[in-house]
């Protein structure tokens, strides 16, 4: 039952991320022209609620998606089961959420 729920959550997070990832790629191609600097990044994102929500949602979705993906690889390739497998999934999810939301706050606050 847990596996089925994680399977669906993996697909749901992918559906949420698809437009966000395409938007991120477009921003990268636009922003990389002429080089990037801290000032250039902040001039675009600082104080922006829109970019905060965009990248905040991206970080939440990618943390869930990556954690489930790494959990699948840990189970299928490394043969992890039970508590160690759950620990890997939670560690990836919480770790990415913590540093990801810190990064979003840093560039949009």
């Amino acid at each position, binding site marked *: 039952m847990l596996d089925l729920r994680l399977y669906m959550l993996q*697909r749901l997070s*992918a*559906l949420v*991320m*698809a437009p966000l*990832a*395409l938007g*991120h*790629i477009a921003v*990268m*191609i636009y922003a*990389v*022209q002429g*080089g*990037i*600097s*801290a*000032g250039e*990044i*902040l001039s675009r994102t600082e104080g922006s609620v829109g970019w905060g929500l965009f990248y905040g949602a991206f*970080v939440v979705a*990618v943390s869930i998606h*990556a954690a489930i*993906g*790494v959990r699948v*690889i840990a189970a299928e390739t490394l043969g992890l089961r039970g508590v160690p497998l759950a620990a890997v999934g939670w560690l*990836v999810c919480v*770790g*990415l959420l913590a*540093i*990801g939301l*810190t*990064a979003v*706050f*840093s*560039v949009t*606050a």
Partner: protein
Amino acid sequence: MMIRPHRNHPLWLAFMLHRVSGLALALFLPAHFYVLSLALRHSARLDTFLRWTDMPMVKFAEFGLVFLLAVHVFGGLRLLALEFLPWSNRQKAMAAGAVAVAFLISGTFFLQAI
């Protein structure tokens, strides 16, 4: 050593590309987030790092990262279509298309970056 038959199938390569690109992106994300988190209090350190990324080899590595992201996104869209939409027989063509679009996007990024 004999390669097991299913591993000769083009869609097994698509599966492996999706898995390897996903794992590589998951490993890259902590570094990506950490560097961006320097923006608020240590913007000089961020600028030092960003100047390092102007090196041609780093630009080439960024091209690789953008390719991995794009191929994971478009390969993932193929998988979502496979699972949730009516069956299509053109899975190999769509997998090849995902790789082609990923090259187009990452190539465009690279040409803008250099």
